[in-house]
């Protein structure tokens, strides 16, 4: 027997749910499919790690998404963009350069929708990311780890040129990426925390910062947008010249207000504090975001910060992130590809 809500679309189901925040629900609810359950993540205050009592610091827990990362939102929009553009033929293979999370999201959605996916990943990403990609049926193509994400992007572009079956959504240059955040992530933040003064997120493709920033500024032109970015270790800087440098096409550096460079070691220290004091089990880039957010909190007289925690800690367990001696293993830790 089919219930009423089984036949309703997302907005209609929303209308039936009790919730306090115009058009948005807290985590949970009932959905027609796992793909429809993407988003609606909780915003949780983290006072025990906030260094300024006059600042309220909130964490948006993106690891509550179906495959455990913010990239589910982007993957959904990227695939819907491919579908709308008519680029998918029956023999198409969706290919994407990714250090893991986008690929996992794409693979999960592709499995649900019946598409074939290949992902190009640096060969030094954590074991768990490979396992998840494989179990969702993605074909995993290795790029040289010492070239970082630059190497994965270059290899994916090369493969697309060689084989017409490959169709690349290309998260680094596709406006659907920031649009996912403009239309979902930012809307949820405004619904849950309209008083937000500053937003902090990791800088990867730039999609989160661009999309959330664009929407938050329409809500409050004075809001400030900050990026935390990784300081790659010695083994992950394999450029031959600066001309091989890469700025994602969707990223406009003038659209943010500041950038914090954070080493893996500093990120992991903040991550451990987040686990110890707040009970939040997050991924390494989230530690870097917390380093930046805490520094901002120290510099603000008062106000409200939202820090986006992109993924959970599960995919990093094999690297002993929570138990390693950070002083002894600093060089090795800083060389890992943990973003």
């Amino acid at each position, binding site marked *: 027997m089919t219930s009423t809500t089984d036949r309703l679309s997302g907005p209609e189901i929303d209308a039936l749910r009790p919730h306090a925040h115009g058009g948005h629900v807290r985590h949970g609810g009932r959905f027609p499919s796992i793909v429809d359950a993407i988003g609606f993540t909780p915003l949780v205050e983290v006072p025990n790690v906030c260094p300024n009592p006059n600042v309220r610091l909130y964490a948006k827990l993106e690891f509550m998404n179906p495959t455990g990362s913010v*990239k589910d939102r982007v993957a959904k929009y990227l695939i819907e963009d491919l579908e709308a553009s008519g680029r998918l033929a029956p023999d198409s293979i969706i290919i994407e350069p*990714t*250090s*893991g*999370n*986008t690929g996992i999201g794409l693979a999960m959605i592709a499995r649900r929708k019946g598409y074939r996916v290949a992902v190009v990943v640096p060969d030094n990403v954590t074991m768990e990311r490979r396992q998840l990609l494989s179990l969702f049926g993605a074909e995993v193509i290795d790029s040289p780890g010492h070239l*970082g*994400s*630059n190497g*994965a*992007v270059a290899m994916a572009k090369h493969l697309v040129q060689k084989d017409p079956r490959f169709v690349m959504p290309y*998260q*680094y240059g596709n406006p659907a990426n920031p649009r996912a955040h403009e239309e979902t992530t930012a809307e949820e933040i405004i619904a849950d925390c309209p008083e937000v003064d500053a937003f902090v997120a*990791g*800088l*990867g*493709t*730039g999609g989160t910062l661009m999309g959330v920033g664009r929407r938050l500024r329409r809500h409050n032109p004075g809001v400030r947008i900050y990026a935390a*970015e*990784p*300081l*790659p270790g*010695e083994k992950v*800087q*394999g*450029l*031959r*010249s*600066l*001309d*091989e*440098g*890469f*700025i*994602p096409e969707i990223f406009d*550096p003038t659209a*943010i*207000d*500041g*950038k*914090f*460079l*954070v080493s893996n070691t500093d990120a992991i220290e903040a991550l451990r504090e987040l686990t110890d004091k707040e009970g939040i089990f997050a991924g390494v*880039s989230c530690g870097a975001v917390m380093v930046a957010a805490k520094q901002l909190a120290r510099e603000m007289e008062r106000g409200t910060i939202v820090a986006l925690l*992109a993924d959970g800690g599960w995919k990093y367990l094999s690297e002993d992130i929570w138990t390693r001696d950070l002083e002894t293993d600093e060089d090795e830790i800083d060389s890992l*590809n943990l*973003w």
Partner: protein
Amino acid sequence: MTAVRIPPVLRAQAGNQKKVEVTGTTVGEALESLLEQFPSLREQVFTQDGSLNRFVNVYVNGRDVRYEQELATPVGESDEVILRPAMAGGR
């Protein structure tokens, strides 16, 4: 003296050093001090009009100087200056 961390991609032109000691009280002066020691770095770090190459990021104590006072950003002896190429982020 302030230490400037040199990324692997620029080290061949900086005597294969990971860190170079420089003088100066601003980022601009510190970079000039670096380029006096290693002139071939100039065309990598600056454009012809004297602004920072868009593929070079400079950080003082972890803050990107493009969002601070750019080349006028102050540096002290205990500050860490990092040069870094713009690279693709993960995910």
